[in-house]
């Protein structure tokens, strides 16, 4: 069937800020959809609150809204744009839930908007546990024993009746299983059921019999309007049932199923997608298989593109989101071509001739006090994918792609020696699923534990255990052989099992160059293979490569000028989509300028690893060895390291030593900015100001220096991103508690001590320089005082409190620093302003996290311009010579994953903990801030009760805030200390109790009873006290708006005031750009 002509415009809903369980894979799928639909001539209207996405680039859609993803705002957009259709299946769970909500509220009917791809009925059938269960039983499939309950009483009754512990608790309608868990006894069950009922927006949980230890498998399937179904990919989980699939190591294709079993799963998938009624598009279906008898159980299905479908797309080369978008407008699969082969149709099932591994990346170190056991609630913040010609090869490639210090399995580095030898520690490490379990399997084998025993402890399929054992055997053989005994056969087997030269050198106790030399002698060379969807049966045209060892190299370097762009690797807190955004822009810009771009990255969620983004894509680990090989074999002319975050920067010097031409700012300048002593000299030379500081190489050193500087002090490890190991300490006692952690964050590197500037205003400046001209991209004033990591702080562009004099001083400092550091490309400077004096906190001559936000706010693609500058062009030729002054306000707010890490302190600190960001745009600060809060959820309340409790330091300001709240009609509740101050100042306040006072009702009771609309609570020490944290956790669960800094409270007041003055309205990015052009005239 040809495409539909009765619809002209389509609304696409994005997935909002990056959160655990919903990351940049939806930017990848959404961007693909935008391209696919515009290609077909449809008008695309896009809405997403996340400015760090490629999809919200103004040229991606016809109309782009960066507005909060809530029904009220969506209704306004729909009323204004009157789209014919809404495509709900590309914006993750957020997009899906929002679309259903719009349908339920009658908004879609009112404005005659058709849901395409999947209709509301199908979405409900797929998402609603009970309906899904009924549907599965109806078509003869098996589901686990389960019940949906809405109260604790019901839950306990069911559990008591069946007595089938362990039981799994899954809250309905939550992301990545937030609030879910496994209960082994009644006590645990009661606690988890309570938590789950709270976490579910519908107050509903599913209780299920446990399938712990069963095999877990996934299928990615598609269906079109002619009822043609295809299976794109099967995925087998290395970790058995019990670990969320997002937290599991997964493998494609499934390896331990026979054809018959696979075919049954495939047919079941088709039966499911038909029964649920997904008319056109993709679905993901999860299965559990009993390893003893093969009993097959359906776990769940997602009637939309998902994290797994993004992985399947990257794993097979089949662009699921793009095809799903085309199917949604009426095409059938046989009418679409396979991009990769050009000749063959998209209606086929990819055949792959390699193995793919996905390994999740975690950030437990940022959430001290939380439990690192992996459960059915997802906790990973990112993932890597790798491709190899054997399971062993891809597993080791994936492990070194993680960038956690592991080189693979063995061969030195983190987890690569004999760190754990105690058998009971090893057993514990196997029984408890954690991020490190894979390394414990090696420890177990080295300690002589049998494969059967390992399989029994972990429930990991014996096949995988044997493969891991195979890797460890090769390690032993290498160790036995040493460099003298290393023959061609062993070396080749080691390379084919994924060992790097570095690992082999380390095991054989020799230098890397000796291994390289041996490989040259034996002719064991790295070759590149194509990901071609068809196992080489047809010719492939899409240059998407992976490295391996074999008899043929399919890489044919072109004669063009080539620039390599090194990506950011797995998403982690502090390094995520913002850097991928910059890499993608660099590629786009350099392609426009006529270069061939070569992207290297290991992150399957990203737009940078879409085979459309660059001229050549290399899906490779970002280690020196892997990256260098890509550079050399392609005969690249240059490499960009300043866009991918810390990952490529850490490689910069060694790449340069190995002959790589690093374009843009030199690695020496980057190091100079990082090196305290050199940097101090630069500051002095330029007559700039820095907080008093010192560099400590040992904890003892640090204590001594602290005495000289005087408290409060900011402790900061060097060469880390995201404030890992960063602390503000107010005294020696506090310092002693944390100094070791600061040193451990970057082993072998010194720790920096800065005099902490209390109550200073912080300012982030993004600028761009071509070596001659420097232009300010944007100045972002933090809402919170200094001491909150810039990745976590709310920011306002343009600055809302600083005077023009101060800003001029900041500009001058920026220009001087750019010149002195010979910046070519982007730079980011953090300033602090205290008592009218400007201090330089940090200079980073590279792309920063705020580049996408700033670019969107000022309507200038900074990363693109920077890439062109790095390739030798001048700002004046590119037409960017003047700082853009915007006639509106852009507010950046961060979102946090605290709800996943029960037990961790909930607070803003110098250590970054946010996973994502949103943007609030409007013509006044109050409204822009209010929008940013709505987008980050929960939004600001406009009436109700406020719980106000602040530390002594903030008490004066609290009085002002209380006055405003009172004037705005809020009823104030405070604990003793704050209440007294308010009373003394004549502000009506109701005294309430702290938890440790014992009296009831206390503040937690009030939160539980939905009696609190807003919490303003500033912590007194480095961490919130236990009872404070309890309040915060409760607020988090009940989605009560919570503010933890006094400056945040000020901003909130302005937001609440603004919301009272006028109704929120919506404006597209294109309209803002028109406003901007108007002022330029």
């Amino acid at each position, binding site marked *: 069937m040809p495409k539909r002509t009765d619809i002209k415009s389509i609304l696409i809903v994005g997935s909002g800020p990056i959160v655990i369980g919903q990351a940049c894979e939806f930017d990848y799928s959404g961007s693909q959809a935008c391209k696919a639909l515009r290609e077909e001539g449809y008008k695309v209207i896009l809405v997403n609150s996340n400015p760090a996405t490629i999809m919200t680039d103004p040229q991606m859609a016809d109309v782009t809204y960066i507005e909060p993803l809530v029904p009220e705002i969506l209704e306004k957009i729909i009323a204004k744009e009157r789209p014919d259709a809404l495509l709900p299946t590309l914006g993750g769970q957020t997009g899906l839930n929002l679309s259903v909500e719009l349908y339920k509220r009658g908004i879609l009917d009112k404005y005659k908007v058709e849901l395409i791809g999947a209709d509301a009925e199908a979405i409900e059938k797929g998402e609603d546990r009970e309906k899904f269960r009924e549907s599965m039983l109806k078509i*003869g499939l*098996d589901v686990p024993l389960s019940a949906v309950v809405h109260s604790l009483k019901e839950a306990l009754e069911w559990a008591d009746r069946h007595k089938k512990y362990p039981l799994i608790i899954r809250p309905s309608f939550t992301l990545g299983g937030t609030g879910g868990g496994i209960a082994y006894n009644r006590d645990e069950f009661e606690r988890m059921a309570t938590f789950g009922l709270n976490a579910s927006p519908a107050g509903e949980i599913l209780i299920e019999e446990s399938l712990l230890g069963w095999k877990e498998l996934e299928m990615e399937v598609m269906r079109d309007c*002619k*009822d*043609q179904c*295809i*299976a794109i990919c099967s995925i087998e989980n290395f970790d058995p049932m019990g670990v969320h699939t997002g937290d599991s190591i997964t493998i494609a*294709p*499934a*390896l*331990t*199923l*026979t*054809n*018959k*079993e*696979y*075919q*049954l799963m495939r*047919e*079941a998938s088709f039966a499911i997608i038909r029964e649920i009624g997904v008319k056109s598009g993709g679905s993901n279906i999860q299965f559990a*298989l*009993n*390893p*003893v*008898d*093969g*009993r*097959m*159980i359906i776990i769940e299905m997602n009637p939309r593109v998902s994290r797994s479908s993004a992985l399947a797309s990257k794993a097979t080369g089949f662009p699921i989101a793009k095809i799903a978008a085309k199917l949604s407008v009426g095409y*059938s*699969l*046989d009418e679409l071509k396979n991009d990769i082969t050009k*000749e*063959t*149709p998209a*209606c*086929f*099932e990819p*055949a*792959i*001739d390699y*193995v793919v591994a996905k390994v999740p990346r975690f950030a437990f170190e940022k959430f001290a006090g939380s439990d690192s056991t992996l459960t059915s609630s997802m906790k990973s913040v990112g993932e890597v994918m790798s491709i190899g*010609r*054997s*399971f062993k090869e891809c597993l080791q490639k994936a492990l070194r792609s993680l960038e956690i210090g592991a080189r693979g399995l063995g061969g030195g580095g983190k987890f690569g020696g004999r760190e754990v030898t105690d058998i009971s520690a090893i057993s514990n490490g196997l029984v408890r699923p954690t991020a490190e379990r894979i390394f414990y399997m090696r420890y177990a084998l080295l300690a002589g534990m049998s494969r059967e025993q390992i399989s029994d402890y972990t429930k990991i*399929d*014996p*096949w995988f255990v*044997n493969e891991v054992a195979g890797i460890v055997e090769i390690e032993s053989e290498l160790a036995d052989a040493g460099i003298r005994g290393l023959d061609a*056969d062993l070396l080749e087997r080691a390379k084919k099992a994924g060992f790097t030269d570095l690992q082999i050198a380390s095991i054989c106790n020799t230098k890397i160059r000796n291994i390289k030399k041996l490989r040259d002698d034996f002719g064991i060379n790295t070759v590149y*293979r194509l990901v071609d969807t*068809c*196992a*080489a*049966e*047809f010719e492939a045209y899409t240059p998407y490569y992976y490295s391996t060892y*074999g*008899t*043929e190299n399919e890489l044919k370097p072109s004669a063009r000028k080539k620039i390599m762009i090194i990506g950011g690797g797995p998403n982690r807190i502090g390094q995520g989509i913002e850097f991928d955004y910059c890499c993608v822009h660099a590629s786009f810009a350099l392609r426009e300028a006529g270069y061939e771009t070569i992207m290297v990255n290991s992150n399957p969620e990203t737009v940078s690893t879409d085979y459309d983004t660059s001229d050549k894509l290399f899906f490779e680990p970002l280690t020196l060895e892997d990256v260098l090989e890509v550079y050399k074999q392609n005969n690249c002319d240059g490499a960009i390291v300043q866009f991918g975050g810390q990952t490529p920067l850490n490689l910069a010097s060694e790449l340069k030593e190995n002959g790589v031409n690093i374009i843009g700012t030199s690695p020496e300048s980057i190091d100079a900015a990082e090196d305290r002593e050199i940097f101090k000299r630069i500051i002095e030379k330029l007559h700039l100001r820095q907080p008093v500081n010192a560099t400590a190489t040992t904890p003892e050193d640090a204590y001594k220096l602290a005495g000289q500087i005087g408290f409060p002090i900011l402790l900061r490890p060097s060469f880390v991103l995201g404030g890992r190991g960063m602390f503000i300490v107010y005294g020696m006692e506090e310092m002693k508690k944390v100094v070791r952690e600061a040193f451990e964050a970057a082993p072998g590197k010194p720790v920096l001590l800065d005099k902490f500037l209390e109550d200073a205003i912080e300012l982030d400046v993004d600028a761009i320089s071509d070596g001659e001209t420097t232009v300010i991209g944007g100045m972002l004033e933090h809402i919170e005082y200094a001491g909150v990591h810039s990745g976590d702080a709310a920011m306002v562009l343009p600055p809302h409190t600083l005077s023009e004099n101060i800003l001029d001083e900041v500009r001058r400092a920026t220009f001087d620093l750019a010149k002195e550091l010979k910046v070519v490309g982007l730079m980011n400077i953090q300033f602090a302003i205290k008592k009218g004096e400007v201090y330089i906190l940090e200079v980073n001559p590279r792309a920063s996290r705020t580049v996408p936000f700033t670019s969107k706010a000022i309507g200038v693609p900074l990363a693109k311009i920077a890439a062109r500058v790095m390739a030798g062009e001048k700002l004046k030729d590119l037409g960017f010579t003047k700082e853009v002054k915007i006639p509106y306000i852009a507010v950046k707010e961060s979102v946090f994953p605290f709800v996943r890490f029960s037990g961790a302190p909930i607070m803003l600190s110098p250590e970054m903990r946010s996973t994502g960001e949103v943007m609030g745009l409007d013509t006044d600060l109050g409204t822009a801030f209010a929008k940013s809060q709505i987008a980050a959820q929960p939004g600001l309340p406009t009436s109700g009760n406020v719980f106000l409790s602040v530390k002594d330091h903030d008490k004066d300001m609290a009085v002002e805030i209380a006055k405003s709240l009172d004037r705005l009609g809020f009823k104030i509740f405070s604990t003793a200390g704050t209440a007294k101050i308010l009373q003394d100042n004549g502000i009506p306040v109701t005294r309430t109790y702290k938890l440790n006072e014992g009296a009831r009702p206390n503040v937690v009771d009030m939160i539980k009873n939905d009696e609190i609309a807003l919490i303003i609570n500033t912590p007194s020490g480095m961490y919130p006290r236990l009872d404070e944290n309890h309040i915060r956790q409760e607020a988090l669960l009940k989605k009560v708006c919570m503010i933890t800094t006094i400056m945040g409270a000020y901003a909130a007041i302005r937001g609440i005031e603004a919301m009272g003055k006028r109704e929120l309205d919506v404006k597209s990015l294109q309209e803002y750009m028109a406003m901007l052009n108007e002022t330029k005239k």
Partner: protein
Amino acid sequence: MNSAVLAFEDGTVYRGKPFGAKKTVLGEAVFNTSMMGYQELLTDPSNYMNILVMTFVEIGCYGINDEDSESGGIKASGLVVARDCEIPSNWRSRMGIGEYLEKNGVPGISGIDTRTITRKIRLNGSLKACLSTEDISDEEAVNLARRWSGIEGSNFLKDATCESAYHFDDSEKNIKPFELGGVHINTRKRTFPLFKCAAIDYGVKKSLLRSLAYSGFDVTVFPARVSAEEISDFAPQCVFLSSGAGDPAAAPKEAEVAAKLMKKYPVFGVGFGHQIIARALGAKTYKLKFGHHGGNYPVRNIETGKVSITSQNHSFASDAESLENAGAIVTEVNLGDGTVEGLRHRDLPTFSIQYHPGAAPGTPGSDYPFDAFYDLVGKNS
């Protein structure tokens, strides 16, 4: 270590690790892109005189079980893999793939870069090959490959067919659809009443007979050399021409018999059987450059417009133009290269498909061709 050799007629030689039987074999190197199903492929008689090259890299992971073989043993000449897994894991597994090859007297070679070989075959067309695990020299292996007569023009039926006629065991246990812990998608029961069906075995797959039986046929299998008269004496209600091995052009007698049967009975052919029908009608068949071997081929049914993904394993194809001239209607085509995948006679109750139904992919018993055959027989009896 690398004592096994794989040599091609073009003179290229690859060395690898031997596994399976110690033996030297000849055959046409055929790559198969199925990621699973090596047990079915090895035992599919259509692979007779094929040296099977698996494009997927991890082979043998789930072992060999008692249920999934398509015939009494391995029919392919040899197996070429990137890696053979020695320790399989699956609850149905009974032995490793190496052991199975050895038991069947078939050699295997592993550690071969099968993608390189696939690309070579794609570019040059299919190649005669020699696979040896007996420590022979490169030259000798190349010479053996060159000297072999090849598949084109060869009739392998006497090796691929059964010894003598037999009644296919249609006990419930033998024909019930595959299930996992009580779950199977095809929830319908066996079709009744049964039609008496004569199946001619050119190298039939068990799954085809199973599907046939489940779809409402009482099946008796006859050797390929059976005459039209013997079939008439048996007095069936319909005839099934099975899949099989070799060049259909080299089987004129079988085509002659088929032509006679088509005039008398409703006839349904699959794979080689489809090619025999084409020959019987007087149409041409030809050898494809490297054939279709895999589980992911899209086929469009011209009459319904619908596309389904099919499993295919054929080196020969029937020629569309000559089919149309011979009174046949092309009913199905390969969406990729447009080759004929199904036909129906304009007047006679005869139809056939080139791909393999009801096995991989697809579930037994629920497929279009068997039901269509049942309806056709119903109408004509």
